């Protein structure tokens, strides 16, 4: 079963096989742990900045046990600090003015394109929903299988291209940005 979980993570299973394995994982606590551990190992190997550990239980416990702390109203800010805040805001606004001038008069300045993950509005009914990284249901959100074919044609079977039946490894970018923070 462990090898099947590994194959599922690598996207090597067919649709029928995948849904069978997911069903088995859902009904078995040990296998669910196994699934989480594989993801954690994968994240560590990829040196991902966010590891897919399940912290919800420990955070919940911590919240339950932590006492509520009531702060007095912070009204007595020392005078000197107020000066500081004023000085910093002055400096920031001067910089902002110069920046605005430089942007306006720098002909080569091109605004950075915003990172896009949304879909065209007329397709909103088909939106690929962001899903938790460790959720097996994400498999349903994979793009059409012919993307593999496009990849072969684009890279002309060169080394580094995944072959048919091998790892698909195509992730929805929502998952990607969640995982890598990009």
């Amino acid at each position, binding site marked *: 079963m462990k090898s099947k979980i590994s194959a599922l993570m690598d996207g090597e299973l067919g649709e029928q096989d995948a849904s069978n394995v997911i069903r088995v994982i859902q009904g078995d606590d040990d296998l669910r742990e196994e699934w989480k551990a594989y993801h954690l190992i994968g994240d560590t190997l990829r040196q991902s900045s966010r590891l897919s550990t399940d912290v919800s239980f420990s955070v919940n416990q911590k919240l339950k046990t932590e006492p509520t702390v009531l702060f007095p109203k912070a009204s007595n800010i020392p005078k000197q600090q107020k000066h500081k805040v004023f000085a910093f805001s002055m*400096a920031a606004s001067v*910089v902002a003015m110069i920046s605005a001038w430089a942007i306006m008069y720098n002909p080569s300045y091109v605004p950075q394109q915003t990172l*896009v993950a949304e879909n065209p509005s007329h397709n909103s009914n088909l939106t690929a929903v962001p899903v938790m990284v460790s959720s097996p249901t994400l498999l349903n959100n994979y793009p059409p299988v012919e993307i593999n074919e496009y990849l072969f044609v684009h*890279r002309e079977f*060169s080394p*580094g291209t995944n*072959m048919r039946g091998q790892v698909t490894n195509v992730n*929805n970018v929502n998952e990607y940005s969640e995982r890598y923070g990009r």
Partner: protein
Amino acid sequence: MISRKIITLFFLLTFGFFHAALAQNLPHSSESALGWLKKMADAPRQHNYSGTFVYFADGHMETSRIIHKTDQSGEREKIEVLDGIPRIVFRNNDEMKCYLPDSKKIYTEKRWFRKFFPNLLPQSFDSINDNYYVKETKRERISDHESQVLSLTPRDSLRYGHQFWIDVQSGLLLKVAVMDGNETVEQFAFVQLEVDGEIHSDSLRPDQSILAQEWKVTDLVTSILKEGELKWQVKNLPTGFKKLVEMKRNLTEKPTLVDHIALSDGLATVSIFIEPIIKDVPAPVPGVFTSRGAINIYVRTLGDNKITTVGEVPVETIKLIGDSVFRQD
């Protein structure tokens, strides 16, 4: 006291800003750096070589063996992928034949526009300086060869950076890294390489064990179209990207032809595939996806058509290129 703080903060912030603004205005690449690129582009047409190289991306490594011969008849090459599903690619100048021994399939194709490790640069690479700042950085030893390291810093955020390790003697590319800022996205590198050794023509042909078997040959027919012949066109492309070719072609498993537009900025290549949405099959899922290494994918629909854009460029660029497609009536 306060005024001194203001002045310090002011200088820090303005310096930071102008530093960032200057980064957008990188100088012209030096002649000697561009000279290295020329040497690198010419090397595969001047030297025989054979060796083993690895591809590394996302914690995945794949080893391949390459034999390359050049003579009066041009360039011939055999690349054998040694890990995972076996795959042997024979290249004879522009023609490509890919053998998949497991499934007994052969894909044949005229190779039009792509360049691959270690033969990465097109013969004319003038546009590279427009889009990248090329700089000599250091010398390093790779696979027992002394190499000159070049860094290619993109002049905007629309493409990835590159690092080239070029064999000082032959000019062959020994290693390449695709960089997203300081992060390496994918790498190719020789782990063993012999340059200018004797290469028998037999080693560049399928051997008897391959020829004796029954294969199913699929010709990836491609018909190259004249400029504007395709009903799909691109407008307002991101800076530096130019159309290489537009064609109608078939894919490995599909019976119908799809439209294919290939673009490049001199180094990065992007493909746009357009095909009608077939009824009775699940609707395409629009969105941006990422594959292994530097590849990003953008799927969108336009009327009854699906537009899939694939390329080794950042997500925002793949989206801009995919959105630039319109129907020409």
